[in-house]
């Protein structure tokens, strides 16, 4: 490392343990989408465990259409400058050059995200090539394991971003958790076929079957808009929550952000969730996923 603060000697950077480790430290926390440095400060002050820097929140990407790409480097740098918590940023699926740029900007995590327009409809980014860790979306266990095989150090269930409708997030976290539980019930000789059906490496499938969990942290995302939504995700077994449009598309973002943080910590305490849910003003209006035509659903991007 050229950084003058770096230690000397036999240090290892960018190892799996270091990449997955940062996600471990984010557990029980809320990662918030922000589009300006001011919003990033609001998120940090409200108790966000990290922020996701992007140019448009998913609700606006959905409303405005067009190709959605990596954010302007100036914007990302302003956000990095404005907060002390980890800063994540999104690259398009398969766009390894956007990922190279984000690494050069020294973001703390890259989200290879279906919310942006995919750059490659066949391949995802080879994430082992990078020092910076990646989080990737998944709708089911096979997809999660393929992303981990490609080097993802954290998984988030996808949900349907920019809708404020939590139903897809519920479906995806239930699917992933259910498939993990089903693996655990299989005998050793059934895991070969399970690996084939999941389209995932056998060794990884065995590891999940034995441990009863993914080898990386599992957050959930896509449609979370209220404290109760966040607590629902946690009760369904998520390690933490991403909130995109739900905060800064609501009436009182700072209050709502702090309330979602509280409900995520006390997710199993209905009285605390009730307290957190009071007096938050308008939630984002949102759109029912059922009303989103299939070609406009983001969760189907990535495979």
């Amino acid at each position: 490392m050229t950084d003058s603060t770096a230690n000397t000697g036999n240090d290892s950077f960018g190892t799996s343990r270091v990449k997955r480790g940062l996600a471990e430290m984010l557990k029980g926390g809320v990662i918030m989408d922000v589009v300006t440095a001011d919003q990033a400060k609001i998120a940090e002050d409200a108790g966000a465990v990290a922020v996701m820097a992007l140019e448009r929140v998913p609700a606006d990407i959905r409303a405005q259409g067009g190709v959605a790409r990596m954010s302007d480097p100036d914007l990302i740098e302003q956000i990095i400058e404005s907060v002390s918590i980890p800063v994540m940023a999104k690259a398009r699926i398969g766009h390894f050059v956007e990922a190279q740029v984000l690494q050069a900007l020294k973001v703390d995590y890259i989200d290879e995200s279906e919310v942006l327009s995919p750059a490659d409809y066949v391949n995802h980014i080879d994430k082992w090539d990078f020092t910076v860790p990646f989080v990737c979306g998944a709708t089911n266990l096979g997809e999660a394991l393929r992303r981990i095989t490609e080097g993802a150090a954290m998984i988030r269930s996808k949900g349907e971003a920019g809708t404020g409708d939590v139903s897809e997030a519920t479906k995806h976290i239930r699917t992933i958790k259910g498939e993990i539980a089903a693996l655990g019930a299989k005998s050793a000789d059934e895991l070969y076929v399970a690996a084939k059906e999941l389209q995932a490496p056998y060794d990884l499938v065995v590891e999940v079957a034995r441990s009863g969990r993914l080898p990386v942290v599992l957050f959930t995302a896509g449609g979370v808009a209220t404290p109760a939504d966040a607590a629902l995700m946690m009760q369904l077994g998520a390690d933490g929550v991403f909130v995109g449009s739900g905060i800064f598309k609501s009436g009182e973002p700072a209050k709502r952000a702090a309330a979602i943080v509280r409900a995520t910590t006390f997710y199993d305490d209905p009285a605390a969730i009730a307290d957190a849910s009071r007096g938050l003003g308008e939630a984002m209006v949102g759109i029912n996923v059922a009303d989103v035509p299939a070609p406009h659903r983001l969760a189907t991007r990535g495979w």
Partner: protein
Amino acid sequence: MAAPSVGVLALQGDFREHLAVLRGLGADARPVRRPEELAGVDGLVIPGGESTVMDKLSRAFGMAEPIKAAIADGMPVYGTCAGLIMLADTVRDRIEGQESFGGLDVVVRRNAFGTQLDSFETDLDIPELGDAPLHAVFIRAPIVEELGAKAHSLAELEDGRVVAVEQGNLLGTSFHPEVTGDTRFHEYFLTKLR
């Protein structure tokens, strides 16, 4: 003798990893989020995570004052990474309004190595834990920039910067023994409870 009961502050962070290590060592380890839960334990671990979040939640839910009182009372407390920040009397590079529990007579700097790209693993020599080096994982880690008269160093990097400190019943590490499988630091902490 009954197993010592150890609380792990479970507001945010990798508290499950600490609970698993402590239970593996035979301790009665419990998550602690409420003052009444703190009252029932003999020691406390403050996990890795985000110190700004732990600070806010501990104050919002009435945990900060009871933890400060417990520290002042001599309760053994061990903090890793964000936990070290929470135990430090003085925190540099904190956000506006950020507070710590304090107790350790040290000055700690948050994110002292840089961004996640500067996170690393390395081996440390820690004589108190035996001859074998301890493999340590540093994740956006803090360092101890100044040691007060009451605290002493347990481990330094090759360049001399302090990354583990002890002061009576208080222990703090910049790194995360809870994620490596080496249980010696937790064992060392548990000796303070017996």
